[in-house]
């Protein structure tokens, strides 16, 4: 497979995951904002920005609706949902002959819908539409595209993005959850914790495991270490690692140990740590370290499959 094709599929997938995550985060917080709460508006939306990695040029100026509109529609801001969809569609256009017609139609119609001049739509409705369409795209991808190398790159893109975003989300919530984990929570804090879980579509899944009894330790345990929940870090890293192994197998690359080691280390940490082990450490440090490792994995994928120096390729 051409490196450029792998690159485009990977980024198409990452951008869509990013758009979906941003949409959910905005949706959850717009909704929570309606309830009376001790959490100040400024704190809430600064936390949203933190969870999105404090995107450049986007600042909190005191108006949640203005911020939401910027993060949803503004094409001048790269991290906005519409920008992400435009980038995903642009990447897919470059590999039009590599993806299925059904995938193309789904993504292209989402693109045409959200970029239509004079789009008249409520923001909540828009966010829902984005999440639904991207879920559909993922279903179509899994059921119409061969699960070969290209599909594996899509998997890698989606789950590396998800892992990094979940780690960042937890980091953003850190001071609300774990600074004072000894004290009895006030009622509105439950709402914020629910919000955190719902930002990762995890509330219902959490309840099935722990009941609706929310505690910071369990939330952290669930989002970090759960083996079965598709938005947990452990699950994301597992899927990513499997996809990377499949790619290594398909491409016949013999010198992928560095990548395998990086992924394996993260995988091992999440598979064999207990939540108590992690709580004994500096949690922010742990979450930060996960993001650093995701970036290292990304860079290594590039060095190995996309942007490798010619000399090493000739030697190998």
């Amino acid at each position, binding site marked *: *497979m*051409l*490196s*450029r094709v*792998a690159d485009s599929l990977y980024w198409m997938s990452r951008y869509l995951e990013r758009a979906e995550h941003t949409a959910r985060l905005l949706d959850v917080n717009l909704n929570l904002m309606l309830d009376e709460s001790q959490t100040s508006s400024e704190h809430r939306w600064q936390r949203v920005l933190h969870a999105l990695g404090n995107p450049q040029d986007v600042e909190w100026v005191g108006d949640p609706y203005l911020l939401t509109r910027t993060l949803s529609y503004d094409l001048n801001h790269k991290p906005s949902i519409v920008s992400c969809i435009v980038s995903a569609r642009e990447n897919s*256009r*470059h590999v*039009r*002959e590599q993806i299925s017609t059904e995938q*193309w139609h789904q993504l292209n119609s989402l693109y045409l819908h959200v970029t239509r001049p004079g789009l008249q739509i409520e923001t909540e409705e828009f966010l829902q539409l984005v999440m639904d369409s991207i879920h559909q795209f993922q279903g179509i991808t899994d059921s119409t595209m061969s699960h070969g*190398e290209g599909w594996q790159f899509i998997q890698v893109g989606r789950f590396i993005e998800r892992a990094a975003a979940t780690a960042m989300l937890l980091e953003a919530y850190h001071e609300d959850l774990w600074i004072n984990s000894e004290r009895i929570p006030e009622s509105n804090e439950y709402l914020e914790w629910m919000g955190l879980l719902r930002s990762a579509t995890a509330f219902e899944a959490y309840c099935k495991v722990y009941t609706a009894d929310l505690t910071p330790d369990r939330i952290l345990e669930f989002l970090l270490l759960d083996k079965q929940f598709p938005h947990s870090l452990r699950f994301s890293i597992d899927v990513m690692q499997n996809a990377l192994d499949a*790619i290594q197998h*398909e*491409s*016949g*690359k013999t010198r992928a140990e560095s990548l395998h080691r990086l992924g394996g280390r993260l995988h091992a940490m999440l598979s064999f740590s207990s939540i108590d082990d992690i709580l004994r450490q500096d949690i922010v440090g742990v979450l930060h370290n996960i993001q650093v490792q995701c970036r290292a994995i990304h860079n290594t994928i590039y060095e190995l*499959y*996309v942007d*490798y120096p*010619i000399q090493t*390729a*000739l030697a*190998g």
Partner: protein
Amino acid sequence: MQFAQMAMDNYLLDHAYDEMFSAPDELRTHYELLFQHFSSLPASELLRRKQAADLSFLNQGITFTVYGRQEGTEKIFPYDLLPRLITAAEWTKVEQGLMQRITALNLFLKDIYNEGHILRDGIVPREVVFSCKQYRRQMIGLQVPRNIYIAICGTDLIRLENGEFVVLEDNLRVPSGVSYMLTNRRVMKRIFPQLFRSYNVRPIEQYTQLLLGTLRSLAPEGRPEPNIVLLSPGVFNSAYFEHAYLARQMGIELVEGRDLVVHDNVVYMRTTSGLRRVDVIYRRVDDDFIDPLAFRPDSILGVAGLFNAYRAGNVTLANAFGTGVADDKALYAYVPDIIRYYLSEEPVLKNVETYLMTRPSERQHTLANLDKFVVKAVGESGGYGMLIGPQSTAAQREEFARRIEADPRNYIAQPTISFSRAPCLVDDALEPRHVDLRPYVLYGDKVTVVPGGLTRVALTRGSLVVNSSQGGGSKDTWVLSQ
């Protein structure tokens, strides 16, 4: 209302050759069956089939890009339902003429980049060749595989008022449109299966296999399993659909400049499994942009070092570099002499009468009669840089007169020819529209002319411009075996 009636009501003949009628109410024999078939269909049914065809194009994403506009840059190529028919006898002559022409032009290219006999013998003036922007000094003395410079060519033919096919233009660089020829046929067979069966139409679907075979036959020596790729400028190119289509149909990789690297004069493509050697490149990028080291240094579409790899014989490009000198519009005037010189034969297909602006007498004549001529810039294509005298304004003529005086080498003039007209479905009536024909010729082991081609239609009433970038459409072209 029935089709027959519609036809009679709106179909007015003029002095141009009509593809369907030899006289009012008098059908040409080979069109009778078609006319009967369409006559049996109610207008509503025709409309339904037209919509089915349009939808089919839309769903397949058969679009092209129009340059110079911000919005709505992806457009569907308009398509006309009535096929254009060419009889076996007419085709035989076209085929012979095209084979003769590509053979002679190949010999010409080999000659001018090597010994230069034709220049020494004064058949073609040196200054015409050397002043051509597409002449590539870098090609001098270079041996190309099988001595084939032009492997893929699409020649534009028109019909004069007497019905004779003549050559309007040779396209020897990166001719496009073949994907429309192939998809038109596919759509046509689906919406008019019975009609199609009742004519003995020669197939064209083998084109992609033939193209692949042609490219394979040009592989460098010692590469029995050549890796063939199609080099596209990328998704913003007007013909990107065609590039993706051909690559998919041939089962070869569609690459862009940034996918290729040259190391030690060998071309590789970057894959996830490492670098893979490339042997043959079907390039759809112009000479100017293909290698920033050898040609335009500001090109970002190209591959640095590609020309050196080519010179070293490690990779074949189809078409070769420098073929544009042979489809220069000023050189065009010499093609009949070129055919006579190399093949000692009379040209089977004639040229359109052409005035060179470098010749003072011809220039004076043209400038005095600008309203009667078509003036073309020699290096342009796609209907850009053209003046159609009878349809021009005084200001446009003045502008062109100025340009011709300033740079006579850059312009030629041809008398305005009312090329043939074919019936088209316009709204729900039948109206005549001007058409041309672009058959596709391949030159590998041997010369092959695919029986058919792209019939381009000037969809605006009375217009003579058929280019897709200028509002042209297309028709399926049926070459009859009997």
